């Protein structure tokens, strides 16, 4: 058996360059090699990996998070008038200044804020806000204007523009479905809920040692290069010329084989890291905490990932919001607090930037059912060891409203653009189509 725990780059270097016979490379590996080579030559777009690179963690709050009860304008009379039942009394609030404070459940976030690790961007949104979950999520995921439909995601375009030839684990989403923000012409990134799921499962029960099926599966994927070059160097004949064989559009076949190899190598790496690195700090129960726990382990293990994606659901609080939103804020706070503690322990907090977002905020006025309806602008958090702390943007007026909703004053693409330019060191204009005003958050 060949060694299975190696990166594709190592694999290429050792198996291919070691052979020093590039003309015998199978087409799909040759292309990969040239892509890597071109990338290495261009220091500007070189992908930082391993222990050096900066990392972005995107945390989606799905369903429309009530921004007003997350970052609360407790000193605004209009807030209390609009929310006689849902409004927090000033003495409950974790005060930031004499106007704003955090939801009482966000104790860990408040401590982080006081340590100067949190930026709060206020009034984030976009022109002509859409109040459909589906559509507004799509706008955030693709970074499109509200009246344009784009299929590629903003992170997918980042991978396309900046990480060609990079390891497929450059983007890792924790969940069942790949987020639309990862969508790209040539999909990059891996998605899994649990590391042990992201592997090829054999038909036979696992009895501790590798089955014949798995052994030959690995051969099918991995030994491609060495076997073919061996044949070519021995008899000099072109393999494709043997009649009666499956001949296919070589680029499609190359692409499939390369993806299979990528899957195999990523899967081995992810599993090995998941087995080796266990969290040293306690994480609470819940899906978000489990996702952040996996991400922390992947970071500890040095997976060459630039962007991680996690999500928390159930923010669509049309009724009975008080308990529901409190539970969500608590879950968010506890999970993020554990994650940050873990990263600090690892010594990786300086390398990681966590950004939250939700498709929209909620209506300023509460409804008759102790809930709130779909709204527009809302605040988001950007936190990390290297963040420039404080409040950014203006808090939107609670009386000058658009159909009952807060008016945005910071385009969400300003946040994306800043993160791309200053954190991921990628040209935001290429990814977002134009330049947006930068924020001093990093």
């Amino acid at each position, binding site marked *: 058996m060949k060694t299975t725990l190696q990166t594709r780059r190592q694999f290429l270097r050792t198996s291919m360059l070691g052979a020093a016979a590039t003309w015998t490379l199978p087409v799909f590996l040759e292309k990969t090699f040239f892509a890597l080579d071109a990338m290495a030559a261009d220091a500007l777009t070189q992908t930082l990996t391993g222990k050096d690179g900066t990392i972005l963690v995107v945390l989606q709050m799905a369903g429309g998070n009530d921004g007003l009860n997350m970052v609360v304008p407790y000193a605004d009379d209009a807030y209390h008038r609009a929310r006689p039942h849902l409004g927090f009394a000033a003495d409950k609030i974790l005060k930031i200044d004499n106007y704003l404070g955090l939801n009482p459940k966000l104790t860990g976030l408040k401590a982080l804020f006081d340590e100067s690790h949190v930026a709060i961007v206020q009034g984030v949104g976009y022109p002509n806000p859409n109040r459909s979950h589906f559509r507004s999520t799509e706008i955030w995921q693709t970074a499109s204007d509200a009246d344009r439909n784009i*299929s590629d995601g903003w992170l997918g375009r980042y991978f396309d523009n900046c990480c060609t030839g990079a390891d*497929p684990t450059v983007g890792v989403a924790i969940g069942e479905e790949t987020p639309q923000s990862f969508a790209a012409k040539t*999909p990059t990134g891996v998605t899994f809920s649990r590391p042990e*799921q992201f592997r090829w*499962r054999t038909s036979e029960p696992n009895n501790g040692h590798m089955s*014949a099926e798995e052994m030959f599966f690995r051969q099918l994927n991995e030994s491609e290069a060495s076997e073919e070059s061996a044949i070519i160097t021995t008899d000099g004949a072109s393999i494709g010329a043997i009649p009666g064989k*499956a001949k296919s559009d070589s680029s499609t076949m190359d692409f499939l084989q390369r*993806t299979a190899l990528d899957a195999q190598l990523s899967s081995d790496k992810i599993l090995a890291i998941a087995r080796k690195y266990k969290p040293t700090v306690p994480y609470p129960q819940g899906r978000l905490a489990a996702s952040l726990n996996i991400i922390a382990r992947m970071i500890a293990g040095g997976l060459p990932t630039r962007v991680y994606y996690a999500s928390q659901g159930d923010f669509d609080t049309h009724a009975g919001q008080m308990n529901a939103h409190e539970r969500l804020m608590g879950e968010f706070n506890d999970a993020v607090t554990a994650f940050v503690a873990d990263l600090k322990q690892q010594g990786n907090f300086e390398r990681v930037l966590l950004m939250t977002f939700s498709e929209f905020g909620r209506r300023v006025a509460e409804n008759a059912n102790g809930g709130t309806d779909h709204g527009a602008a809302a605040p988001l958090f950007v936190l990390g060891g290297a963040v420039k702390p404080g409040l950014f943007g203006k808090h939107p007026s609670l009386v000058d409203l658009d159909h009952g909703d807060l008016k945005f004053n910071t385009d969400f693409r300003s946040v994306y653009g800043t993160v791309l330019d200053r954190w991921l060191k990628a040209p935001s204009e290429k990814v977002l189509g134009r330049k947006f005003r930068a924020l001093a958050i990093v």
Partner: protein
Amino acid sequence: MQKWNGETAAHLLNRGAFGSTAGEIEAARKKGLAAMVHELVDVKTDAANVPPPAWAHPRNIRAQRMEIKAAKNRGQNFQEKAREVHMMESENILDLRRWWVERMMTGPAPLLEKMTLFWHGHFATSVQKVKDAYWMWLQNDTLRRNALGNFATLVRKISRDPAMMIYLDLHQSRKEHPNENWARELMELFTVGIGNYSEQDVREAARAFTGYRVDMTTQQFRFTPMQQDHGPKNVMGRTGALNGDDIIDILVNKPVCAQFIGRKLWRFFVEDEPSPQIVDAIASSIRAHNYEIRPVLREIFSSAEFYSDRVMRTQIKSPTQYLIQTSKLLEMQLPSPIVAQNAMRQMDQILFAPPNVKGWDGGKAWISTSTLLFRYNFASYLINGDAMSPANAPQHCQDADLGFRCPTQLTEQIRRDPIDINKIIPAELREKPGELVDLLSARLFQVRPPDKETNAFVRYLEARKPDTGDETMRGLVHLMMSTAQFQLA
């Protein structure tokens, strides 16, 4: 006349239908190319007269909304009613997916279903916004009835289709504030393509489509002349008091429209990157046939290009194709509706919920490390049964999506027995690895794979010796399906 043999027959049935069993391929080979194309393309009109699922009838959305609102105003718990409606919708859309996939699998007119799928991707509409399975069924029925007919007629029907109108906000377009969403996508995605119209055209066309409404009681299209903008408009050089149908005529009469549709058809049935010459040829065929789809398909399936080496077995199977063709190749039952739905979701093609108005990109976009690994593991579930244990079932319980349920409810629905391997492996070949691998290669790939693969399959059997039991045989089939070759049709 094209060369006609088992390989080309299988190719026609892969692309023009959803694949075929070994017996169907042999029958097709005997019938000959012309007869097979005729059988696929010239389906009787009543093939589209498909009885709807039992629940698919209007249920007066307005009354339901009033009921919820009334409960709300009375201060009662309206959530229960809302949840009930939501649950019913989840059940219905799940059933609609089952209903359609079964038609693709066993229906008498597979090309009709495949073209319906083509148009579903073309006029992409998602239940996530439409939120009513009846409207999704109604659109599916409209697509099927016109799938092989006239393109201009289909566009006119789609402009009056409630699901599409809701999806692109046409039903809310007022003459004081025409909504441009439908008008823009009509040009950009449905007819002429980007770069072939101006912003002015979009604005003027939006005015022409005012007055289109959906009656929420009957749930049908209704035209409201009072809401129509009767003023003069100028679209692509034509002026007058144009209405919606006039706009569609203007667009369909543009030669670029035939190119746009022709290219898309060719990509769907033949190859990802058609040459400009091919696009021109198919566009002129579309114009010559006055946008009748049936004769165009007949020409595609009879063309030399369709059977050329660069085309055969080079198309990455869509998840729909993967699911149905695999069921045919292994001569097995489809997985349960809930499993099929979840699997399609993880392979990135949820019927009735395309990712956006552009539909599915297809081709290489189907394959990422995650979806490829999922295909390999899904193959194991299909062959061996319960590999998808409840612990691996989806975790979303309160998901905003319609139609995904809690894992606790799933246990019974994901139960699956291993396939009957004797259906595809004759007993006398179990002891003959070389012959067995050749036989299965012909079935699964319809071609002999490169030696490297063939050798690995044979060596697997040798390594398992003396065990030639069902488990070993299923392991072989799984190994063969866990290859790049199996992803191609």
